[in-house]
Every structure is written in C-alpha cells, then in structure tokens.
C-alpha cells in the first residue's frame, strides 16, 4: 500500500469511526432523554411538555438525516444542541421536584 492509499484509508477509517461513535452518542442521548421524560411524566407539571417536545423533534430531525451527504460536523452540532437542552431540562426537573418535595408534595420517581 503506497502512502496516498494509506492516507486515504486512514482518513476513511477515521470518518467511519467518527460516525460510529456519533451513532452511539445519539443512542445514549435518547436513552437519557427517555429517563428524564419519565421523571417529567411523574412530575405531571405539564410545564416541561413543550421542552420535551422540542428535544424529541431534534432527535426526529437527527434520525431523518440520512444518505451519504450526512455531515459529521452537522450531526455533532445537532447532537450537542439536543444534549444541552436535555441537561437543562434535567436540571429544571430536579429543581422543581426538590421544591415540590420541600413543600410536602409527593413527587417520588
């Protein structure tokens, strides 16, 4: 294998590895979202439904990205956005649950 072919192979391998890891990251992000959404459902406040819907839409958009024009940078950017919203939601849900618990409401979950 000459230098040019080796370099092209290495670049391809790095690209494939990156997409594989992005796929894994997406699956983990969805799993985490599912857990937070369960807490939101138990909380029954309704105030987080809109955020949940928005995050779900972001995942749907990510899922619909397909074909060989899929760009790693774009996928990563979308995933980071969804993760950022997810962390914010998690923090808000945790705060709301604590406040409610302090007030004596049962928000176990």
């Amino acid at each position, binding site marked *: 294998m000459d230098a040019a072919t080796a370099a*092209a192979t290495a670049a391809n391998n790095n690209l494939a590895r990156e997409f594989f890891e992005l*796929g894994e990251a997406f699956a983990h992000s969805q799993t985490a979202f599912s857990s937070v959404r369960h807490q939101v459902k138990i909380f029954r406040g309704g105030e987080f439904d809109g955020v949940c819907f928005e995050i779900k839409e972001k995942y749907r958009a990510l899922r619909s990205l397909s074909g060989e024009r899929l760009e790693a940078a774009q*996928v990563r950017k979308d995933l980071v956005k969804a993760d950022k919203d997810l962390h914010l939601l998690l923090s808000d849900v945790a705060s709301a649950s604590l406040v409610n618990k302090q007030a004596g409401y049962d928000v176990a979950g």
Partner: protein
Amino acid sequence: MSFWKLKNYVSIKRLVSRGESLVAMETLTEQVEESGQPPPPPQRNDVFLLGRWTCQLQQCLKFLKERILIFPRVITKNLFFVPKIEENLRNVERFCSQILLSPNCCREEGGLDKEECWNRFCELSLNYFRLRLYMVTVVFGEADVFDDRENLRFARSEYLRMFPKRSDGRGRSLEYLPLKAPSLDWFREGSSFGGSVFKILELSMSLLVEECVLKELDFYEIEDLGMGAGRLEKYAREDVELGSLEEKEAVVFCRELAASLLANAVEIERNFLRKQLAELQSAAGRRPNATNRPLETGVDYNS
C-alpha cells in the same frame, strides 16, 4: 470511474485549463495510476446506524442481566444465566472493536466491510432475541405468554442451538459455536430460508406486546411496536428463494425490524425494571421494621 480517480482527473483538467504544461498533467496521471484505487469512502449513514443500533443492543443485554438480578427477587439458579449474557456482551464489544479498528474493508487487520458488519449485527441481535425468548418464557417462568407448547419448544431449541455443549461436558457456552466469518448464514440457516429468523422476530414481537399488556407497562415511550407484523407474517409463510431480489429485501427487512424491536425492548425492559423496583420498594415500605437501608436483594450492585 471511481470517485477518487474522477477527482484526480478533474484536478488534471483544471491544471490544463489554467494553462499548465502537459508535463504536469502526465505526472499527475502517472501518480493516480501508480497509486491504484484507494478504498471507497465509508457509508456514513450505515456506520451511524450501526453505532446507534449496536449501542441499543448492548443496553438490551444489560437490561436482561439486571432483570435476572432484580426479578422478582434474586434466584440463585437464575444467576447461572449471567455469564451467558456476558458472553453475548463480549461478542458485541468485539464487534464494536472490529468496526473501530478498521471499518473500511481492511480484512488483513481483522476489519469488516459493510455487508459483513450488517450480517454480524443481525447475527448478534438474533442471539439476543433467542436469549430473551428463552429467559422470559422458560427461566422467568412467564410461559403463560405462549399458550402454544410448540413455541416453547422452539424457544428452547433455539437456545440450545445458540449455546452448544462444552467439550468437557461442563455446561454450555457461546464460545463453542464455530467461529465463522460474518455471512448470510444467520438468515439462511433453519428449516427454510429465513424461516427460523422470522419466527424468532415474530415471537419476540408478540412477547414484547404481551409483556406491555400483562405487566401494565406504560406505552408512553414505545413507538412502532407491531409495525411490519403483516410483512413478517408473509415472509414467515412463504419460502424465500436463495440469492433472489426478494431474499435481499427480506434480509434488509429483518435487519430493520430487529433494530426497531431492540429500540422497543430498551424501553419495555426499563419500564419493567422501574415497575419491579417500585413494587419492591413499596413492599419494603410496608414492612413494620422498614428503614432507609437499601433493598436486601442479596446482590452487591457495586461489585
């Protein structure tokens, strides 16, 4: 002409159009011809989906393991199946490392090409469904899900086929399956082409639906469960001709259905475990001397 060659020839044409000498063009042409054709770029969408679905498969296997450790209390004989799940998990991890090692046809390095990756993924997913069918119906004793004894026999025989007996007679292990290169064998093995594969997927789908109903699980996160049932039934009924276009379609259908069932299984297993833990906690809360100590399941979850 490959994309790579085309790109080089375009570079050459550009040089010419810019008025560069013919010598430069000849040099570049020689470089392309000498270097040969580099491997094609990876199929981005395929690798992305592989990453996503393989991760779901790992989660499913881990949930199954947790179910043994939680459901409904730790039963010593059920712990026997933990190593079986770990064997499957190791195989999935090995598959991931093969993809990460050289995901683009570098066979000499132990890498897999696109088709091999998909075949291995399907093989590993079906092993999970085989194991799950056996665990839920036979080990956890939820056999009433299947009234049909034939289905129970099928679940048992698929499990036994998956874990051949060790040569020294000490139990069964996945390791004793002959190590083969990934191929369409996962689909072609069985009484007729795809026959047993369709049955595994059909029973797994029924089992997931039944579990949701029987255990009153929440459908909140569950999507598309049961989709493709009609097509599945059709394939299960009719023989698929080897190498035909229909076989190719059936293989892709199996792969997508397996991925969809995996996604649903993640949610169903998690909901099931939540429910199970909530019941355990409420039972602990009802005990007269209940304290805030962790549940006495007999298992050290930190180990």
